[in-house]
């Protein structure tokens, strides 16, 4: 490793530092989605009927498929980590690639959802035929927040696919497993965020 690894006394201390850096970064990301959720809570309390209407009109099936896709990707990445710990690197690489593929599938489904909304005349900012047909006060806020929240989450999934894909190609060796753990922590966090966005925009 480069110059900065020799100022740590041991690999264990370096692994500890990387894991803590991830924990701190995930706390920071939690606040990023807290800000979006604050807007959702604020507007949901102001326009309850518009949100009920919006949720009712959302593409619930595609959203639910996406949830299953993300959950399976998280499971496969967790199993991949366990495989790496027990030395079965080829299986670990396969499972990691599968996780990255699930991420890509998630984004593909997301894009089809967006196309479906655009076709229906739903655009951020309350523009489009849908809002003329349903002039409900507060409905633009629901859809704008939907695009904001799923957009930010989509960007994080994209970054996750990049990180997991990189890890699949450059699978770390036995002394550097903490690098794989860091990527896994980030991916599980992105899955966690979707577990809360899904009910808010699709189910209830």
């Amino acid at each position, binding site marked *: 490793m480069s110059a900065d690894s020799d100022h740590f006394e041991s690999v264990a201390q370096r692994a500890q530092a990387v894991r803590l850096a991830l924990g701190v970064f995930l*706390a920071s990301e939690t*606040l990023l989605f807290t800000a979006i959720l604050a807007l959702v809570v*604020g507007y949901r309390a102001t326009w309850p009927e518009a949100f009920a209407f919006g949720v009712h009109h959302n593409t619930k099936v595609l959203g*639910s498929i996406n949830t*299953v896709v993300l959950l*399976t990707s998280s499971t496969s990445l*967790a199993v991949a980590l366990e495989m790496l710990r027990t030395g079965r690197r080829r299986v670990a690489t396969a499972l990691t690639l599968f996780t990255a593929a699930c991420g890509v599938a998630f984004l593909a489904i997301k894009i089809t959802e967006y196309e479906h909304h655009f076709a229906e005349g739903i655009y951020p900012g309350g523009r489009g035929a849908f809002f003329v047909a349903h002039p409900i006060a507060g409905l633009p806020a629901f859809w704008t927040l939907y695009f904001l929240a799923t957009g930010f989450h989509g960007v994080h999934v994209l970054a996750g696919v990049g990180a997991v894909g990189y890890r699949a190609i450059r699978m770390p060796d036995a002394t550097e497993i903490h690098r794989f753990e860091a990527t896994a922590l980030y991916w599980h966090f992105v899955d966690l965020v979707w577990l809360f966005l899904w*009910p808010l925009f699709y189910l209830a």
Partner: protein
Amino acid sequence: MSPIRLRIVVGLLLAVLATASFVASFGHLGSFALTVALSIATIKASLVLVFFMEVGKQSASFKLALAAGVLLLVTMLALVATDVSLRRGPSWANETTSPRRADDSSL
């Protein structure tokens, strides 16, 4: 149970919970719908945290960092929700249906 099998079982459990909340969303639960969906989501989230992210085996400062994030999440949502829902309009507006109807609590 070997760690690998444990993770697969947890994965299946998560899928089951997901389908459960999907089915529950078709039921006419009205105001309970959100609480049901979010509580199932919290259970799934804790499963992911404990078994996939192994938060139990992480260092104390790791747990402290996540706890601080979650604590601030709850505080911010609570304070924004109380602000928006407890705002009161003009004295006579509450008789007519003004856009910002608020229950007439003392505060």
